[in-house]
């Protein structure tokens, strides 16, 4: 989703685009400076920053969801402790801390991936990427791992911490009073909604950036990034998988912290029958074992493959163009764009996102003979507009008016403040002790 551009930004964008069209490569920062009339390259840099913010911004916003999950765990822990159920409280805080740790790993991985994309393709704008999986296969695998972890899909680490959060919610509903039961249930439902929307988001990010055809020259010419960047992402991906398969190790590490916080020991309660092979995670009577799950899945997959190979050998795979209904000139513009992919969500949640669109006819006569038009879609950040901005404005106004009353710049006034505070403390002590 692109915000409306200011005049200067539009000018820079037009200049860059025209240069790319004319010469085939984008202009340097100095050229932009001289073309647009800035004196300083850092201003140009800041404008360029503002124009492409998409993937990283998306990742930052999705952290809000994960913070919500962590706070659910913390809140449940406090609630359970207030009813006196220490074990449930310890479980909830374990879920919260585990999710915080997992989040740091997979979010870091995703940001590194976005950085790699930026490095290789020169842009963070989803609308200009595509087809990167063929050019950057390893980055694609690592980014896929990160996406699957953040969507809480088994067998990665995001799944284990969300599972623990769900279990904590379940036990808390059983333990709490009536109103709390309803509140926790609704928050569980919202967690499910947020999780499914996370899948929506990351299918969009991954699908539009990595799959199908490249949408611009930049991504058509992308090259795999260098080994240090790959190894960094690889280490984090391995951590995602490892934590997903062996969650008990982390919970055992967390043991002293939980003990400190809640005076109870959770590891034994949670470890099921902890033979190394299965390492299941057990809460109350439910348990999961991601390792066994993975092994089972592999087993089934092997059986399936064998069956297929035995029953239906000699399969040929033929490559051909995508189905185009006979149109015959399918190009990258026919694919779904990121904005289009998220349209159902914009419509369903329109009361919160307040999407706005504007069609500006540049040339031609409306409504039938338009030769050039500009269509802008944007959403408003309602929290920013209706909550944060007014509050900030009020505080800043107040501060601006009272600034010179307190900060006089005179050392004597500051010393006077200290002096008066000491005297007042004496008086207070004298009066209260007497």
């Amino acid at each position: 989703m692109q915000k409306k551009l200011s005049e200067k930004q539009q000018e820079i964008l037009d200049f860059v685009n025209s240069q790319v069209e004319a010469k085939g490569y984008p202009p340097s920062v100095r050229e932009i400076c001289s073309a647009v009339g800035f004196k300083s390259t850092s201003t140009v840099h800041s404008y360029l920053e503002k124009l492409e913010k998409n993937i990283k911004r998306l990742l930052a916003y999705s952290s809000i969801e994960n913070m919500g999950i962590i706070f659910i765990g913390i809140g449940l822990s406090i609630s359970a402790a207030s009813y006196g159920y220490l074990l449930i409280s310890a479980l909830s805080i374990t879920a919260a801390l585990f999710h915080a740790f997992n989040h740091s790993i997979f979010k870091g991985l995703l940001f590194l991936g976005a950085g790699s994309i930026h490095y290789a393709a020169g842009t963070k704008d989803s609308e200009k990427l595509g087809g990167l999986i063929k050019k950057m296969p390893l980055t694609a695998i690592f980014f896929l791992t990160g996406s699957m972890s953040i969507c809480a899909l088994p067998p990665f680490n995001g799944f284990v911490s969300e599972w623990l959060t769900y279990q904590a919610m379940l036990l808390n509903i059983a333990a709490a009073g009536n109103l709390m039961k309803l509140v926790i249930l609704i928050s569980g439902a919202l967690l499910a909604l947020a999780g499914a929307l996370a899948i929506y988001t990351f299918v969009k990010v991954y699908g539009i950036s990595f799959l199908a055809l490249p949408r611009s020259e930049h991504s058509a010419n992308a090259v795999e990034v260098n080994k240090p960047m790959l190894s960094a992402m690889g280490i984090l991906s391995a951590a995602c998988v490892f934590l997903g398969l062996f969650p008990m190790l982390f919970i055992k590490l967390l043991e002293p912290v939980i003990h400190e916080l809640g005076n109870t020991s959770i590891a034994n309660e949670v470890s099921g029958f902890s033979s190394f092979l299965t390492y299941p995670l057990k809460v109350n009577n439910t348990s999961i074992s991601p390792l066994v799950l993975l092994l089972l899945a592999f087993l089934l997959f092997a059986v399936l493959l064998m069956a297929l190979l035995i029953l239906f050998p000699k399969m040929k795979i033929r490559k051909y163009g995508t189905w185009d209904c006979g149109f015959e000139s399918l190009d990258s513009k026919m694919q779904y764009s990121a904005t289009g992919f998220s349209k159902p969500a914009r419509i369903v949640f329109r009361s919160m996102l307040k999407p706005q669109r504007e069609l500006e006819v540049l040339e031609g006569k409306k409504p039938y003979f338009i030769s050039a038009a500009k269509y802008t879609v944007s959403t408003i950040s309602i929290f920013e507009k209706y909550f944060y901005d007014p509050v900030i404005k009020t505080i800043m106004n107040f501060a601006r008016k009272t600034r010179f009353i307190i900060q006089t710049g005179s050392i004597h006034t500051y010393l006077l403040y200290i002096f008066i505070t000491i005297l007042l403390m004496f008086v207070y002590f004298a009066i209260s002790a007497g």
Partner: protein
Amino acid sequence: MPGTFLNIMLQLIVVLIAAPLVNGIIRKIKSTIQHRKGLPVLQMYFDLFKLFRKDMVISENASWIFTASPYIFFVSVLTAFIFVPVVPQFFSFGFTGDAILVVYLLALGRFFLTLAALDTGSTFGGMGSSRELMISSLIEPSLIIIIFTLGLSSEAVSTSFQSIYSVAGSLGTGILSPVYLLLFAAIFIVIIAETSRIPVDDPATHLELTMVHEAMILEYSGRYLALMEYGASLKQLLLITIAANVFLPFGGNLVPELGFLIPVLIYLAKVLIITVMIALIEINTVKLRLFSVPNLAAIAFILALIGFMSGYLFGR
């Protein structure tokens, strides 16, 4: 251990055989009521066999995700089925998974299904993916509420299927309790949404205005298409199994001498009942406009929530 493996294999064999039959029965019922001869009940088996034998044609734009997704989808649904036993005798691997795991395994399948649809660069794929993801996002909360309510109502407060199955049994009256009727209605709507049936999505259409699931598998052919279709019918059977075994809970332990034979037959009868209900709903309603589906999802949510409140909060 070997007993466990035997149980799992039997379970998988039963469901693999039964899944295409459900599709066939629904089609037959629809065509009979519409006074048509219709396709034979066993048609899907023939279709799958034919598709498995055919060569595959893949788009030039596709990557390994496109070729891997059918396998991942199929295996994830099959793995999920291990944790939803069709008869109580097959309760063996419960320690490795519970209801929430099943939900997330289905989500894994959906993740790859929708991702692969974007891989070919065709507009249909993106369209189907975005619609499917929107619908499933709105349905998830209801499903979680249902699972939570059932889990909480069980003796041992837990979401393992053992506990969930034991709920209706412990009540004695099964589905006739009004609480569970509400939950049954909610889970019925969930089944319809997740299996892409009318009124949420039409499984027999190929018009871009109306496709959701079909749009995503448009590019697949041969073995891949077979795996996708088989996987979808397995997912359908899984959800029907959950509904059948929780809400129509009789006949778990009849005639124990023959082992699991009679319970399996009873299970198949329960599945038949729910299949008939789905077919009747398909005939009597029309496909909803895409942006009216949120209303349906909201109805499911409210039904589930009221079921929770009356069944767990104030009932008992």
